């Protein structure tokens, strides 16, 4: 038996150790707090109430990630059975249970952007703010990695919203960060294509000198990655070639489109290096030879190219008519681009498109270089895409917002747009609507060869009625706007 004094001593010891526990806790608690999911918002709480009991118990008793994984697998099942609406609440729960699962943010945002489609496969654009909010939440929870910044910039601002400046901002940030090994958590270099896409983005917004710098930076980075050889099986000589060919082509295009002979010289230097390599493709060798001769000739005659400086009358004509309630016909003409426009272009030196086309038999000869698209957007008159502070997939079902594009073929475009079949997507509750139909040389579906004639910024474009130089400062675009009444719709 222990004596009373020893017992008191032991009790005292217990008290001291409890104080010690409190002190250790004060060190560990703050670290632990950082790892916790934030307090669930109202929607998450509502969702948790709907969860089977065992899920709730498991999620609050330390098996959060197991539950998150199980729910995510369930989402996969829903996807394959077409139960798309069921996926988004799961995304919400999984990101709450495991706020560091990058895949859930990217897949969830993609799902919101692309998978809620009408009968004509047009996605419901009202989900885009939710998609962006989800990605921004992901970035907040996972700062310091490239993935979500790139996803936000490339997929959302660039492809979906065509807000190229915002896309550029995001991709600049993405290029500041590395990635992470998904198993060990070790830092791994971000894929080299992220740096390349930033260069393309600079080009898209017309910051050519920044694009040139970025191509050089991307190339240096690839060289370093090849030097390190650390599990980077996808980086090799071809990655360097991609940088070289793109930078070389950027220089040559600056020369052909705007007459920059210094850029021509630099582009040729790069192509010489590419052409002199043992395994150089025949088209690269041929392009280098032809461009060298062209450069020498132009230099001798002081005749710089000016492909994108020759005015081109777009002759933009557009009509939007109601064929039936909520069914419309979009029709029009645009002078992009007759084959004859390529006849004397400097870029022909390397493409030979016009020459090859002329050699074809009459029935196969192209009269136009098709491929441009005309974009259209129909929204409630006062519609402004909301910027959500926090992720919520509950959309305003009274709003109508829809956009898409029409393919231009033979200088004309025409399409029947049926918005009558999906009343949930297109409620048409407003009294007035805004219709915008436009073409920009920046848009992702404006091919390089169209830009070869009109320039990156549409410098060559002229049009009597629809030329717009104010909507996008520094750019020339074609824009048709009209206010529609309910009677124009219903």
């Amino acid at each position, binding site marked *: 038996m222990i004596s009373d004094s020893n017992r008191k001593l032991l009790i005292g010891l217990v008290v001291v150790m409890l104080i010690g526990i409190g002190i250790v806790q004060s060190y560990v608690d703050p670290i632990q707090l950082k790892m916790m999911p934030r307090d669930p918002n109202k929607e998450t709480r509502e969702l948790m109430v709907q969860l089977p009991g065992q899920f709730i118990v498991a999620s609050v008793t330390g098996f959060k990630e197991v539950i998150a994984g199980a729910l995510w697998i369930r989402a996969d099942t829903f996807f394959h059975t077409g139960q798309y609406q069921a996926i988004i609440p799961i995304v919400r729960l999984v990101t709450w249970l495991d706020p560091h699962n990058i895949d859930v943010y990217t897949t969830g945002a993609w799902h919101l952007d692309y998978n809620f489609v009408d009968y004509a496969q047009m996605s419901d654009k009202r989900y885009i703010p939710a998609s962006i909010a989800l990605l921004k939440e992901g970035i907040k929870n*996972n700062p310091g990695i490239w993935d979500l910044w790139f996803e936000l910039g490339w997929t959302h601002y660039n492809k979906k919203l065509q807000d190229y400046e915002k896309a550029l901002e995001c991709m600049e940030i993405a290029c500041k960060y590395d990635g992470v090994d998904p198993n060990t958590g070790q830092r791994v270099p971000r894929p080299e294509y992220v740096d390349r896409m930033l260069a393309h983005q600079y080009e898209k917004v017309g910051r050519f000198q920044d694009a040139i710098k970025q191509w050089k930076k991307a190339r240096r980075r690839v060289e370093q990655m090849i030097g390190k050889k650390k599990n980077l099986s996808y980086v090799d000589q071809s990655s360097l070639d991609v940088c070289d060919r793109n930078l070389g082509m950027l220089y040559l295009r600056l020369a052909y489109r705007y007459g920059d002979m210094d850029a021509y010289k630099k582009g040729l230097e790069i192509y010489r290096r590419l052409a002199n390599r043992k395994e150089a493709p025949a088209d690269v060798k041929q392009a280098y030879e032809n461009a060298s001769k062209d450069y020498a000739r132009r230099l001798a005659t002081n005749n710089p190219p000016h492909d994108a400086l020759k005015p081109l009358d777009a002759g933009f004509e557009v009509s939007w008519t109601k064929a039936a309630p909520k069914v419309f016909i979009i029709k029009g003409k645009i002078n992009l681009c007759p084959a004859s426009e390529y006849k004397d272009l400097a870029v022909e030196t390397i493409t030979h498109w016009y020459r090859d086309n002329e050699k074809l038999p009459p029935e196969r000869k192209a009269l136009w270089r098709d491929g441009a698209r005309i974009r259209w957007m129909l929204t409630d008159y006062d519609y402004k895409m909301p910027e959500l502070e926090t992720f919520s997939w509950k959309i305003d079902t009274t709003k109508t917002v829809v956009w898409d594009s029409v393919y231009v073929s033979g200088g004309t475009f025409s399409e029947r747009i049926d918005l009558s079949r999906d009343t949930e997507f297109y409620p048409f509750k407003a009294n007035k609507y805004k219709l915008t139909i436009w073409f920009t040389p920046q848009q992702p579906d404006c091919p390089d060869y169209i830009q070869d004639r009109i320039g990156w910024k549409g410098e060559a474009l002229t049009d009597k009625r629809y030329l717009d130089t104010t909507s996008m400062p520094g750019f020339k675009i074609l824009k048709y706007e009209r206010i529609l009444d309910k009677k124009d719709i219903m």
Partner: protein
Amino acid sequence: MIIWSIAKTTVGDALRKKVLQIFLVVAIGLIIISLSFSQTLSFSTREGSATDIMLVKSFGLGLMAVAGWLISVVMGVSLIPQEIERRTIYTILSKPVKRYEFIIGKYLGAILTLAINVGLMGIVFIAVTVFKAWGAETGTATTSAGITEAGMQKIGVFDPNTIWGVVMIYLQFMVLSAVVLFFSVFLTPTVNFFMGLGVYIIGIMGSMTQSLASAEKANAFVKMFYKVVHIVVPNFDKFQVTNQLLHPETHITSMAKYTAQVGLYALLYTLVMMTLAVIFFERKEV
């Protein structure tokens, strides 16, 4: 020496228990089965095995936690009452064995048994994660970005942090064993089982008690109550490092340092429980 003899006997007894063997075998079997998680998510925007490995890790750690809990509680609840029921305690205590030696020996035996079980599960778990990651690749592009030229990147094979994950699981059940042993001094096994379960559930919600203890709108009494609960009840959630293991880049810079801090916490709490167990057992009439 006496303590070690008691510990060895306790380990021998525990390892012979069929129920514990079944927990172990089932857990190991399920961990191995998790290897079949292959390209589970076909709708994911990310290609490759990263998601599968994440699932294997979370599943494995979850299973180890469940098995560890069952083993430590099922073994712990009967440590003292069984000796009393079988009357073997009279034989032991009639020898020159001090009561505190008996308690410490029993506890040492329990945590050694736990070490063997968690160790075996841990070895299988780490082997499974290494096997899964061997030669696995992950997509460097998100398919939604529509970039088709991006290649696949090999992922790291061995994540040393998984060792810390296993250690953490062991530490938390070392604490739980101490709690259950303390209760077993004066509670019946059935009551003790539910007490162990209750303490574990409150402990696993440590972050919740912490939030309640610092809730702005709560009154002083409520805050104080939860503050005491937060300190007195072992915070088992501190040992839950699954998320850190799955996403180590976003959390703790040094897993070893965090483990050391939590290890100290576990040690202090264990000592408190053991001291209390000794005090109570000294006064217990057997």
